[in-house]
């Protein structure tokens, strides 16, 4: 039982998180404060929401890089739409979901119809979505976003007065992240669609033979990625309270790295929601921890890279060891 747990990536990431939080907490006890924890969870909500979609595509057996461009386009479009036609936050989320799903479905359609690798199509659509966003908007920033985005971003559960006079509390953003995680978990573990995604990721031809509609599965996955990217776009604008048209783009490799650290296989067919959550949590804690330990944020990338390298080397070493112990013994007759 214990050995089985240790064999999973999640266990190592969990231990790493535990060790890291002890080290950071010992050097700076404010790490464990309610204010700090809610703070770093909030700032990583957008990456957390997008990571669920990335996990789905990785399980399907490919790498999507266009989701940041989708989030960027949706963020801009929704803010412009609300400024023009008005509406409350639910309208904003509805518009974001629809737009995200449409952009995602385009990916899925092209990928399945032309039978080309996911990464090629998503690099192409990344360029189209992001390029067109800049062409149409001329790269203009939007600073005076509608008040209701700010109000939504400032809603606090369990509000408390901080020592310096401000208030802090649990923002709604981490709850949306949590909702995305739960939704992803239900789809992957409790529905036929989830089974289908694992089957297609494991072996597409075999999946087709047993009667899984691979086209529908792919459409669903890319629609879902677009949906989450759209939601993430609105969450992002609620957090940063302005729209900069190139701020989300460029985060795709960080998101993929977080999901991979969480144990998802880049060959498809393997990956868990819990692992993905741990991966993003690790990144969030590292970023926060560096600040609390008064280490320059320049080191963030170095530590992330080192963790990726250590993680993949350890798991490769384990795999090689296992291959050694499982050598077939040939017995002469």
């Amino acid at each position, binding site marked *: 039982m214990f050995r089985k747990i240790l064999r999973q990536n999640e266990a190592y990431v969990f231990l790493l998180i535990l060790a890291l939080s002890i080290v950071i907490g010992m050097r700076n006890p404010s790490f464990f404060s309610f204010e700090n924890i809610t703070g770093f969870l909030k700032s990583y909500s957008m990456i957390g929401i997008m990571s669920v979609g990335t996990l789905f595509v990785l399980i399907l*057996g490919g*790498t999507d*890089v266009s989701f940041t461009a989708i989030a960027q386009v949706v963020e801009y479009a929704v803010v412009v739409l609300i400024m023009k036609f008005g509406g409350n936050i639910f309208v904003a989320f509805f518009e974001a979901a629809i737009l995200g799903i449409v952009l995602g479905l385009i990916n899925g359609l*092209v990928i399945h*119809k*032309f*039978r*080309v*690798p996911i*990464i*090629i*199509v998503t*690099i*192409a*659509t*990344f*360029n*189209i979505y*992001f*390029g*067109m*966003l*800049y*062409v149409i908007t*001329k*790269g203009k920033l939007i600073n005076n976003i509608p008040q209701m985005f700010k109000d939504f971003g400032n809603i606090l559960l369990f509000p408390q007065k901080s020592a310096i006079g401000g208030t802090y509390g649990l923002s709604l953003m981490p709850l949306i992240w949590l909702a995305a995680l739960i939704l992803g978990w239900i789809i992957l573990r409790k529905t036929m669609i989830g089974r289908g995604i694992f089957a297609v990721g494991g072996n*597409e031809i075999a999946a087709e033979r047993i009667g899984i509609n691979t086209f529908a599965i792919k459409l669903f996955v890319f629609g879902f990625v677009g949906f989450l990217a759209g939601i993430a776009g609105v969450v992002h604008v609620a957090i940063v309270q302005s729209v900069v048209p190139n701020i989300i783009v*460029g985060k795709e*490799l960080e998101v*993929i*790295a977080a999901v*991979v650290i969480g144990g998802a296989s*880049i*060959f498809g067919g393997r990956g868990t929601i819990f692992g993905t959550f741990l991966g993003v949590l690790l990144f969030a804690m590292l970023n926060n921890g560096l600040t609390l330990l008064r280490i*320059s944020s*320049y*080191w*963030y*990338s*170095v*530590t*992330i*890279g*080192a963790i*990726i*390298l250590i993680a*993949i*080397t350890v798991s*490769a*070493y384990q*795999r*090689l060891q296992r291959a050694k112990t499982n050598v077939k013994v040939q017995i002469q007759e």
Partner: protein
Amino acid sequence: MKPLRFFQSNRSLYIILIAIIILMAILNPTRFFTVGNFISMSYQIPIIAFLSFGSMIAFLTGGINLAIISTTNFTGIITILTLRAISGQATYEASVSSSIIALSVGLIAALSIGALCGFLIGYLEIPAFLVSLGIGTLLNGVNIVITKGYTISGFPPFILDIGNGLLWGIPIPFLIFIVASVLLSFLLTKTVFGISLYLVGSNAVAARFSNINIRSVYIRQYMLSSLFAALTSFVMMGQLNSVKANYAESYLLVSVLACFLGGVDPFGGFGKTGGMVLSIIILQLVSTGVNLLRLDPYLTQAMWGLIILLLLGTNYIRSSIREKRRLSAVLQEAKSNPSATNSASLL
């Protein structure tokens, strides 16, 4: 999922190339067909070409090199640090010999990064995607930590000439590009190492049983890929007269895109230098065209994506038509001569 063998021939590329040239001739002939325009294009082509060559080499065995941009910047940073160590703070006055030493140190740094990537991929059997993602992130961090995010500038004339100089009226970076393309083409098609790359990419197990040392192939492959990163860095240092931790970051996806346009199979085994050169020229022509028409430069990016999708579409339609024709021919034959044809020929 084995995809269709897309863009097998360069025919579609020639068609696109000619179409773009005709389009430019119609839209803006006075500015497009000038010597100055072609000279400025020949300054811009080498950077994107070397990065794309670096990516292509990784793709030949089904790998990917996500660390190529950070290797490029790392090379530049190591080079200027070496210059500083040799000739003090006044790096722009450094002599030719110390420039050469600094460039060599930068090159060695790049090659060691490549060797490390190759080692992890070959000996520990870790997927190239993860290795290069990890190394790339780490190296990017190292670059930021070394430079503290600042731009470091001041290169001696010798290094500036690599990016800006003229030789016999031709820009030196373009000459390097021509020589590098010819050498790369020779290396890939005429040497044992080149052939083994394609073989490992098509079938690594078969390659191993053909007495190819796959591990050493991987190491040399990623060293070659990093060599092109170093070349990019040398040209960039010359043109920008500075180094920074995040130069050319947006070129990572572009270099991958150039490979797909050039007919490189991301699953390994297929891809030629000729196709790459064509694809790079197409990408540059689009970019120049957009600039000359005074359109938004980001339109270039959207057009590049559209060209890929168009190419995917036409290839798909072409291959499905071919498949239909083949099937109907087989059926025709089966009708006219039922005994001679068996069902196996349908597959």
